């Protein structure tokens, strides 16, 4: 397996579905961070076969990492201090997300009305299904928005 330097203090986002790392990289605006970021694509995984990983040196204090649950509910977030994992967490699925997911229903009002947020509600916690609050179509696909917020209803 490809080796990347162990980080002393930072975050490792693990078990990202293959191909999803760049979406998360873009969403978290990691290109603007003044620290080392490693993206490992297509890494071997006992659990998933293949996976993506992002290693970030430094902390993302401003970011609610739970929102990543809406992008990829299976990821694991490891918090690293002094080279050790001090906390391992699986993001919970936010009840409501705004401008994270984009409605792809051509009949939805979001396809024509300017300036309204793309808002989704978690309607099935077990299956992780999000529905557009306007047309109620289930989200199906890869998140394509690059900025957004998470709120509790």
């Amino acid at each position, binding site marked *: 397996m490809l080796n990347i330097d162990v980080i002393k203090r930072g975050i490792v986002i693990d078990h990202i579905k293959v191909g999803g790392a760049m979406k998360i990289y873009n969403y978290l605006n990691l290109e603007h961070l003044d620290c080392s970021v490693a993206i490992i694509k297509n890494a071997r995984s006992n659990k998933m076969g293949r996976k993506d990983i992002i290693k970030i040196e430094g902390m993302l204090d401003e970011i609610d990492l739970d929102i990543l649950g809406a992008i990829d509910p299976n990821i694991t977030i490891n918090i690293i201090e002094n080279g050790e994992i001090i906390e391992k967490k699986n993001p919970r699925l936010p009840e409501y997300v705004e401008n994270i997911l984009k409605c792809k229903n051509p*009949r*939805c*009002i979001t396809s*024509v009305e300017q*300036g309204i947020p793309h808002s989704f509600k978690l*309607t099935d916690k077990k299956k992780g299904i999000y529905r557009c609050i*306007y*047309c*109620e179509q*289930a989200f199906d696909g890869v998140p394509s928005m690059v900025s957004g917020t998470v709120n509790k209803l």
Partner: protein
Amino acid sequence: MKHIITPTDLTLEELDELLSLSEDIFRDPKKYSDACYRKRLATLFYEPSTRTRLSFEAAMLNLGGSVIGFSSAESSSAAKGESIADTIRVVSSYADICAIRHPKEGAPLVASLHSSIPVINAGDGGHNHPTQTFTDLFTIKQLKGRFEGLTVGFCGDLKFGRTVHSLISALSRYSNIRFILISPDELKVPAYIKDEILDANNIPYEEVRSLEKAIPYLDILYMTRVQKERFFNEEDYIRLKDTYILDSNKMALAKEDMLVLHPLPRVNEISVEVDNDPRAVYFKQAQFGVYVRMALIMMLLRD
């Protein structure tokens, strides 16, 4: 202030109140002839509609109120590219309540988020049409006297038919109800209706293709039109539109007290020979729609 965007925006208690008020209006419409005196309804219809718009307008006029509005996107500022949010902000200062129909799903919700007057969804694409659902419920309540214990058959376009989805959802709130879903494979009820409404509430249902086989078991038969505008491709429409036609021969197989409902407009899915059958109540249903809309307008203006 309350908006009605989906049929479940009314609680069961509010729905009971709506149905009781509708019944009282039905019995004595004159009593309510000034109930909305000096109140104004705006009908914002971004796509053509005959029944729904006229029904809303008749309802408001029956209550002593007045009506303003437009009946197509071309005759509104939408043709100039105005957003729904801007339109409703302006209309809020011209009227006391508004009914909006729009071809895009979720448009009435967007309107309600920017409105300072109650918004009623008068149909948003293939999505919701709550006043049709309230009308369907009132028709069943008036003519059957109950919701509990009924076997309700839905026939035709169960995939795109918004009235079907809404009525299934509304009836699922009552106990001991059972559905028979009659459609070709291409137009079956979407999986999410089965998963999130029927299975989630343990409601028994069957999916069948034959109207003849299902009809003897039904207390209510809800017929729907296979709608051309819901298809992306005309070939599919032509192939499926004549799949289910209700005629006298099929009616002969039904219970004596089965009711035939239809949201109208009817094309050819119910033969005209059925119109004189006392079990065919779809024109009465359209008449009931005015009373239900009167009751809804009154309740929303009161709150």
